[in-house]
């Protein structure tokens, strides 16, 4: 069904190469046996990967990011489920206003959010606190979870819930045994997307993290501004791998094209 001429296909090839170039380069250079950034030509080496695992700062940051992501995604999903139900199932005053607020982190630059939270954290005195960092991430990733959950709720059929109610089930039971299973793909997809977003985030985090809570992307940024060596490439390659796994899971559970461009 392709109606594209050779120029169009050539253009497409260029764009694809453009999009893949930095990622491919990073993954390839990570295997270099040399001391400098270079493409491995004679042999592949894992020395830089070993260096990453030996580098305590990076390992610590990785665990920070992992736990941060897990907590933030879970909390974000937990508040997004009831909020999503409220947005879609009810007509009430202030609904559009609330919807706007909950989705605003998508429009407000992360820079501004980072700066604002830094101010508040220092005033309260919680600058190095991990729980407060989690809350900061929750704000940023909730819109992603909320959008997917809203889509799932809007697409679900209410008659199943009505049947359960007519058979005597309580609201809580209906939610637990009918609604939740129905919107589960949206919920899990939302959770995963929230996790990925938290794991990747750097602009806000760089303001809000303290030496003990530095996340992986922030650590990478700071390292990259000071020294450029294949260690950075190795860490980057690992990040790409982690993202690839998450994308695979996301595709299995929800469908990557649905997430990236909406309905199929």
């Amino acid at each position, binding site marked *: 069904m392709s109606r594209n001429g050779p120029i169009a296909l050539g253009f497409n090839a260029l764009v694809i190469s453009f999009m893949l170039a930095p990622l491919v380069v990073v993954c390839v250079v990570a295997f270099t046996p040399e001391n400098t950034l270079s493409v491995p030509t004679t042999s592949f080496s894992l020395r830089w990967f070993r260096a990453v695992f030996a580098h305590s700062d990076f390992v610590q940051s990785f665990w920070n990011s992992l736990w941060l992501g897990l907590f933030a995604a879970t909390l974000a999903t937990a508040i997004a489920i009831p909020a999503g139900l409220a947005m879609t199932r009810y007509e009430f005053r202030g609904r559009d206003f609330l919807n706007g607020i909950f989705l605003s982190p998508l*429009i407000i630059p992360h820079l501004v959010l980072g700066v604002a939270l830094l101010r508040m954290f220092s005033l309260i005195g919680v600058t190095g606190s991990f729980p407060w960092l989690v809350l900061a991430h929750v704000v940023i990733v909730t819109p992603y979870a909320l959008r997917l959950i809203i889509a799932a709720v809007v697409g679900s059929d209410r008659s199943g819930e009505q049947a359960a109610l007519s058979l005597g089930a309580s609201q809580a039971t209906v939610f637990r045994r009918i609604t939740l299973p129905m919107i589960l793909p949206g919920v899990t997809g939302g959770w995963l997307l929230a996790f990925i977003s938290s794991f990747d985030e750097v602009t806000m985090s760089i303001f809000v993290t303290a030496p003990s809570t530095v996340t992986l992307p922030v650590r*990478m940024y700071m390292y990259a501004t000071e020294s450029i060596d294949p260690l950075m490439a190795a860490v980057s390659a690992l990040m790409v791998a982690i993202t690839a796994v998450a994308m695979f899971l996301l595709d299995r559970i929800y469908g990557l094209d649905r997430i990236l461009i909406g309905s199929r």
Partner: protein
Amino acid sequence: MSTGAGRTLSAKATPYLLSGPALLVFSGLLLVPLLLTAVLSVNAFDDATGVKSGFTLTHYAAVLTDEYYLGIFWRTFSVSAITTLMCIAIGAPEAYVLSRMGSPWRSVFLLIVLAPLLVSVVVRAFGWSMLLSPEGLVNQCLQWVGLGPVRILYTERAVIIALTHVMLPFMVIPVWTSLQKLDPDGENAALSLGASPFTVLRRVVLPQVLPGILSGSLIVFGLSASAFATPGLLGGRRLKMVATVVYDEYLHELNWPLGAAIALTLLLANLVVMLTYNRVIERAYRKSLG
């Protein structure tokens, strides 16, 4: 069984109760911090004693009149504008080409174009810094064909190239969505009426895709203007943009009020652009495309 009035009351309160937790989090960690920052931006600052309470507009004055900051804003604006134009020039045609492909290639390529969104921007920016460095692949290719090593890294060019890469998916998505709404027979109808393929693009496809392009431009411009990691890694220490200047003020100069003023100016600029866009789009397209 509760009374009718009782049931109505609790039913009315339900959506508020359901949104409660989220509202609590957002009030505490979004609204309050923004307010505090607004207050901060009009506080005075002393190199010796730090932030002092009291009302002053010196920081905003500095932002809006000082040559240094105006230069930063101008550079940020022009970089964002050029990035937006590049994304239109590359992203819109690419979305069109993809929409005319058959499966499975269409889904595969679309995924390749959009998936980088899920990879951290630090990784992508670092990848570009490797490609554009004096010993990087791009220069190696140029030397191959005889052109001397060109200084790309740590210039505006590098920032634009990397930003285009990061922002391209944000242009492709709305344009793709617009294209999906097109009637597939519309182009055939125009052809049957005697239009050349180019005229079909110009008079039938483009007008319908324009809202998507504008929507994408808005997103790309806004994100580029507030970008941090990409200009940070590809612009180097000397090429500052708004986000990196704010970083300096907060973490190096410790002049938080000034940093807050700059950040809020950026936020305001973003909101103004967005509202004007909505107004313009609504008026122009309400009748035809709803």
